[in-house]
């Protein structure tokens, strides 16, 4: 720590093979393909943008209602609606490339083969900085969380994608498991470079007047401040077990203070998700909060914070 005030802390963030200019990343599914937030968010200040989950073919998604508000959070059941990887590359990616921000492609398959084909298609695609293997989507009938609940299946899909790409490889973990450390270990053992955690917690809300679930699909993924303590705990558990593995912590981060909490628990970077719905410039505001905290505390490099919780 320095003696005097720090004018601007060093924000550079090293996640294994992926080097970012700042630790704040938009979480998949919450920032669309970026252009939806044009004029409202300065993308050049983000570490990276993780795009809405992609599949090989276009996906219709689940019937509405797809979202509902819950105490300090929300449930969603979008069901991976997306135009498919080809339309993403042709129609969505060029805008993001113009924003001068690394793009992380979140990939989803119903089978291992589909994950592999997505990885092959996106590897070498200009503008794609990394792949995030989503094995934790709770809102689809096939694939998704099925892969992320079992260490053997996790190893199978992550190992296959590892063989198919030279890009930095992220794996997004589900909290809906008995031991997240076990899944994390399985992913790292077969070549995951970085772990993103957590995806949403499976939840349900019922309208007591109609006796119907408030989401058409019945269940959905809980996000927002309501899940933050669970997410911080899981980041801490995984960091403690696998201290060398870079983590992107996410789950209810609304402010710079929330982000710092994740970093103290062991996250090298943070994902801003649901907050972007509430505040479209949340990705920038969280970074400003981290900077302000670091200046106030005389911290020269924000990376110093990572894992520095005192037990």
């Amino acid at each position, binding site marked *: 720590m320095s003696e005097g005030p720090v004018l601007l802390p060093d924000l550079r963030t090293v996640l294994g093979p992926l080097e970012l200019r700042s630790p704040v990343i938009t979480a998949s*599914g*919450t*920032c*669309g393909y970026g252009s*939806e*937030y*044009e*004029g*409202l968010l300065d993308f050049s200040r983000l570490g990276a943008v993780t795009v*809405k989950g992609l599949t090989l073919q276009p996906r*219709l*998604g689940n*019937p*509405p*209602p*797809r*979202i*509902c*508000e819950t*105490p*300090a*959070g*929300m449930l*969603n059941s*979008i069901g991976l*609606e997306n135009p498919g990887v080809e339309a993403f590359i042709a129609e969505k990616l060029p805008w993001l490339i113009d924003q001068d921000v690394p793009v992380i492609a979140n990939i989803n398959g119903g089978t291992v083969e589909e994950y592999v084909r997505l990885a092959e298609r996106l590897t070498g695609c200009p503008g794609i900085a990394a792949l995030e293997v989503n094995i934790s989507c709770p809102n689809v009938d096939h694939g998704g969380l099925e892969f992320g609940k079992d260490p053997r299946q996790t190893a199978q899909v992550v190992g296959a994608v590892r063989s198919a790409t030279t890009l930095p490889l992220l794996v997004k973990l589900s909290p809906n498991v008995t031991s997240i450390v076990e899944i994390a270990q399985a992913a790292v053992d077969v070549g995951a470079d970085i772990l993103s955690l957590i995806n949403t917690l499976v939840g349900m809300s019922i309208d007591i007047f109609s006796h119907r679930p408030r989401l*058409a699909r019945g269940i959905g993924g809980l996000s*927002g*401040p309501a899940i933050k303590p669970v997410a911080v705990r899981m980041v801490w558990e995984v960091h403690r077990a696998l201290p060398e593995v870079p983590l992107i912590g996410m789950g209810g981060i*609304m402010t710079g203070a929330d982000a710092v909490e994740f970093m103290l628990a062991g996250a090298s970077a943070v994902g801003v998700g*649901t907050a*972007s*719905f*509430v*505040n*479209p*410039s949340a990705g920038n505001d969280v970074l400003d909060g981290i900077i302000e905290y670091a200046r106030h505390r005389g911290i020269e490099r924000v990376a110093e914070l990572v894992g520095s919780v005192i037990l």
Partner: protein
Amino acid sequence: MPDDASRPSIRDVRAELQVSKWLSPIHVLLTFRAPTIAAHAQPGQFVHLRVSAFGNSPLLRRPFSIAGANLADGTIRLLVRTVGRGTFMLGELFPGGELPALGPLGRPFPEIEKGREVVLVAGGVGVAPLLFYAATRDHDTKVALYGAEAELALVLADELAEHCDRTQLATDDGSVGHHGFVTDLLPETLGGLRDPVVLACGPRPMMAKTAAECRTRGVPCYVSFEAWLGCGVGACLGCVIPAAGEPRAYVRVCRDGPVFDADEVGWDLLR
């Protein structure tokens, strides 16, 4: 589908409440100072409002159709029906209080030739965007049909009538006007007009019935939808409704709408 043209003018501003006026025991009309929104707002567009500047519950913003914009003093008006925690909190906000307001958002009502007769079909607080339309768009003939549960809930009916050549009311309980649904008034109204266009905003069954009636008669119809929104800017895909036609697709109420040509909506799949 074309994107809303006014998109570069979208701002997330601090809107200061200037006047809070209760129009019924459950309806409150809020006047906010928000000059950039007032300057660009078009009828049919909405603002996405945080109901509290602090705290995380309620978490998500609430969308409100713009009921009027005053360029001279930079204000917008929002009509709120208090139905839950978020809207109750809005009703309790004191003048001087500031809330984050994102807007103007969404696709507005289309430009309609001045010579065509415009029929505005309003159900409950669905009157808000139609009032803005009636007050700002000039037509040779404007007819308003406005329905609600009871006379007490027909808020701003006098103001709507001031801007229209003819206004007919309907109530579920018969306390004023036609005793029944507002859509009961449509056949006779449309039958008496030469080349009408219908603009509707209200409960989904009301809009479905309006759209069906217009379709039968070959009358163009535009409907403004309400939905639970997440982001309000088209990113989260939380607010979709079924689109018409094949292959099956969804459209976003916040970005592709909230105003749709009735022929774009998959009415048979709507729940």
